[in-house]
């Protein structure tokens, strides 16, 4: 067997959901969005620490100092690159949440079909219409969130 780099195998299987149908896409998107949101979460906690003057502050700072640090932070963060990043993140957050509800229910055995005698052509009972609907609703919600935030940040659609 030609030895494959495990990281390359992992990235390929995680990031390329081709050929196995819609649920494989949901798996990849769920994974990518999860990692992205966690990364953002860590940065976001670091960034909001500037409300009290920064992560290194351990006692109550002067009100004026905190106010100034925060105002500078907001100015620093208000540039189109961060805004675009936030818009993508809105997409990922809404997808992950809504698709997560589907996974939550199916992991508990809800929204699944019943085991039956397989008859050709086979339709997996694990993949019900209800689930497909939730998946596509998740995509719709995510796109709506993307457009909403793009509009807020860039005023592209409604002035």
């Amino acid at each position, binding site marked *: 067997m030609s030895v494959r780099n*495990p*990281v390359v195998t*992992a990235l390929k299987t995680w990031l390329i959901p081709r050929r196995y149908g819609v649920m494989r896409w949901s798996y990849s998107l769920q*994974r990518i969005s*999860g*990692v992205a*949101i*966690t990364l953002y*979460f*860590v940065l976001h*906690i*670091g960034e*909001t*620490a500037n*409300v*009290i003057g920064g*992560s290194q*502050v*351990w*006692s*109550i*700072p002067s*009100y004026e100092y*905190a*106010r100034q640090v*925060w*105002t500078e932070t*907001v100015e620093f963060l208000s540039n189109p690159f961060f805004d675009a990043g936030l818009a993508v993140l809105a997409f990922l*957050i809404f997808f992950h*949440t809504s698709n*997560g*509800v589907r996974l*939550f229910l199916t*992991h508990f055995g809800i929204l699944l079909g019943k085991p039956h005698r397989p008859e050709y052509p086979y339709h997996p009972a694990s993949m019900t219409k209800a689930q497909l609907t939730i998946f596509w609703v998740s995509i719709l919600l995510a796109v709506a969130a993307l457009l909403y935030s793009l509009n*807020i940040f860039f005023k592209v659609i409604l002035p």
Partner: protein
Amino acid sequence: MSREARIMMLHYITGLVIIVAGAIHLATVFLVSPYEESLRFDNTPWSVINVYRNSLLAGSLEALLLAVAFHGFNGLRVILLELHQGRTWTRAVNVAVTVAAIAVVINGTKTIFIASML
């Protein structure tokens, strides 16, 4: 129930907490007042410092912080354990993920705590 099953149960529960607390968080930033106004330090009703001073909202932020820290870092742990198997790796991943989650929670809790007293 096995240890892993208990962890995953918490994963589901924190997921639900995030839906509620996250909705409150997004609503205070985007819905109840214009986005620019909620980013201000003070002087607007939903400005940053006013949100932290409201103990209900601050409490919900703390809940969100704890839940996302658990849910996110547990997800990361699962992915890393799937990447490679072995005793040392498992232990390293568990320690790294726990330390990182605790550090983020401490940093965030401190912010919420101090900001509410500013």
